[in-house]
């Protein structure tokens, strides 16, 4: 036991002291943020601004500029059509939107000398439609589009679909479908966390085992400790490295959120923005609402908040956290020992790939079908994926937040038991492959060899 501790200590401190660890710990979240934000920023800034000169003889489209479409600017002109066409030819203007007076149907013509880029025509049409509907609303109903939207939204938000679950005893329990989003989010986040953790740190285990073998230090070490002690020591050591990194990220995230909240208090308080919008509503907004609508609306927002809290409260967090930790640890151990076995068996990096694929596949598969599992957490795909040890760490965590209707207690117990057995089998197999593999040099290893090593009794 003492030997394993010494190995864990070395594994941990050597890695934590490395520059690459410090850089990765700092850059990891940054890279992640860049990865997420870049596409969004690209979409936002990649479009060139287009200025369209408008000649509106119908006087129906006086406000084509919209805050939603910042890439297209409309400039109104009083020049004649022929003058503007000349401007277009002399490149003084880039595009001309001519809207003639027409008593039957309003419409326009877009004059350009070259292509304006994707989506400009449809954006212009959308702007015209919006402009026209605003005109109609204001002139004929005396209400602005924005006010109408807010009103419609507030009214339609009250629509809610209830769901009643009847269990075998005929007892009914209510849960609003709104819960599903919260459950989904929690399930996915825990599933993805486990997926990332297993991949990142199991490949670290593989690298370290492989390094030890190619460095030829492994025989010196195995003359003092048993191979399985060395293997377990490495796996646990890397687990601590991972937990350290995770802890640093969580703590810095909490600090970052704290700083943001202190600096920009409004970002996090939805209530304030709602009230601000309500206060800025024009007087005519309330004409279209029932007399007691204001009270109803206030209640409405309270219900929403309460519902969110209720959805959270509905999830058994003690169970979820315990299960998360259980699958987090056992999942890591299961995969890490298999990765360690590969690292110990192969002699060069190129050989690693062929053995990586079959043990990476189940995890990947679980990740891919997670959508189906979330859609039907009580279904047979969900059941089987959450029972089989290789996929259960992800599948079970996606099912768990949906509660007792989706996962029966016996399923959880079965899944956990199989996971423990799977874990022990994996460590046992890995230890057999590892102890033979690490002392085997200069031989190309096949699956047949691995099978033979498992059968050797030592």
């Amino acid at each position, binding site marked *: 036991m003492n030997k394993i501790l*010494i190995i864990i200590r070395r594994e941990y401190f050597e890695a934590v002291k490395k520059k690459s660890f410090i850089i990765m710990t700092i850059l990891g979240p940054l890279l992640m943020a860049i990865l997420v934000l870049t596409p969004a920023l690209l979409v936002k800034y990649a479009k060139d601004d287009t200025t369209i000169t408008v000649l509106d003889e119908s006087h129906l489209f006086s406000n084509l500029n919209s805050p939603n479409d910042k890439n297209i600017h409309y400039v109104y002109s009083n020049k004649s059509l022929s003058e503007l066409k000349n401007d277009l030819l002399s490149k003084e203007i880039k595009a001309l939107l001519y809207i003639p007076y027409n008593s039957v149907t309003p419409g326009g013509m877009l004059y350009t000398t070259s292509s304006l880029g994707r989506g400009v025509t449809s954006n212009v049409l959308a702007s015209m439609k919006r402009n026209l509907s605003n005109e109609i609303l204001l002139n004929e109903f005396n209400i602005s589009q924005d006010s109408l939207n807010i009103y419609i939204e507030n009214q339609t938000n009250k629509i809610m679909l209830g769901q009643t679950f009847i269990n075998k005893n005929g007892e009914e329990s209510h849960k609003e479908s709104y819960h599903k989003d919260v459950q989904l989010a929690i399930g996915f986040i825990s599933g993805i966390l486990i997926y990332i953790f297993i991949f990142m740190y199991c490949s670290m285990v593989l690298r370290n085992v492989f390094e030890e073998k190619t*460095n*030829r*230090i492994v*025989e*010196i070490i195995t003359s003092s400790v048993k191979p399985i002690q060395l293997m377990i020591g490495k796996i646990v050591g890397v687990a601590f490295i991972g937990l350290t990194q995770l802890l640093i990220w969580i703590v810095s995230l909490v600090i970052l959120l704290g700083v943001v909240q202190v600096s920009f208090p409004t970002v996090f308080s939805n209530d304030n923005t709602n009230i601000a919008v309500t206060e800025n509503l024009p007087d005519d907004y309330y004409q279209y609402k029932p007399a007691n609508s204001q009270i109803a609306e206030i209640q409405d927002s309270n219900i929403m908040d309460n519902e969110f809290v209720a959805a959270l409260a509905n999830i058994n967090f003690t169970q979820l956290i315990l299960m998360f930790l259980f699958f987090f640890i056992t999942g890591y151990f299961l995969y890490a020992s298999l990765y360690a076995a590969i690292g110990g068996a192969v002699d060069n990096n190129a050989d690693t790939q062929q053995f990586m694929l079959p043990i990476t596949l189940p995890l990947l598969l679980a990740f891919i079908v997670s959508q189906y599992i979330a859609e039907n957490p009580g279904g047979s795909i969900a059941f089987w994926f959450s029972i089989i040890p290789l996929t259960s760490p992800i599948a079970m965590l996606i099912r768990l937040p949906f509660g007792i209707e989706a996962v029966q207690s016996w399923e959880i117990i079965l899944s956990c038991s199989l996971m423990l057995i799977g874990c022990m089998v994996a460590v046992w197999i890995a230890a057999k492959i590892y102890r033979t593999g690490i002392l085997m040099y200069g031989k190309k290893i096949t699956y047949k060899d691995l099978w033979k090593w498992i059968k050797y009794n030592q």
Partner: protein
Amino acid sequence: MNIIEAHNISKNYGNFTALDNVSISVKKGHILGLLGPNGAGKTTLIRIMNHIIAPDKGEVFFSGEKLTQKHVYQIGYLPEERGLYKKMKVGEQAIYLARLKGIHRNEAIKRLRFWFDKFAITPWWNRKVEELSKGMQQKVQFIVTVIHEPAFYIFDEPFSGFDPINVNLLKNEILDLKKQGASIIFSTHNMASVEELCDDIVLINKAEKILEGNIKTIKNQFKENLFQVQFQSANPVDLAGLLTENFDIQSIENNEDEYTALIKIQANTQNDLLNALIPHVNIKSFQEIFPSMNDIFISQVNKINLKNN
């Protein structure tokens, strides 16, 4: 009294037989040379005696007890395939390896300081292993092999990768360990070092032991009554004319008036040879030529291989 005894060890890897019913023992305070061509099973046998792998059949006894994991702290093992963590600092790495041998950190530092001074590598304590020359890395490896002061050592090809100066240094260290009472298994292809260091030898070929015993006994056993005579004579010498047909002249060379001859004789007739020569030439030296371990090794291995084919 034997420090370690391996009885009837067999080990198979699938269809491949690595060791077939091999028994060896090392006497306390002796150096045993474990010889054999590549792939003979030496490393497998060494790993079994180190408790790294287990035999399919047979048992190993250490100081009379059945070998278990606790005995590995009384064994110092320098494997043939040896290396160090390249990115780790030398001193820290040595401490780590010493602690795995069950030595407390402070004690490990104390002993390491002594050895690092002795081998003049103290300035490298805080450097990374990859900055060291191969010879220096080998010194570090030797130090961590002896750091726990075991009673029994296994050196597998200890001189490979050493320059001649370091080979001598290491040879003297090994002889020092012997002087202090340690028992040693010494596995090598280098026959000259076997004759220089070993008391006993075991020769393994194709998973089987084919020869064992005290090195002097074996040499006597394989001696061919071959004598080397060096003499001086002013006149040309017709050696064949001087000797009877009981003496078989293998070779004769001369450098001006100095002659060197190899003569094979009947057992215990060396005095007759001298008597025959003394009246005619001036004897400068006269000695029996024993077969070298290299010759014995090659002839024995070839004999077995021929028999099998």
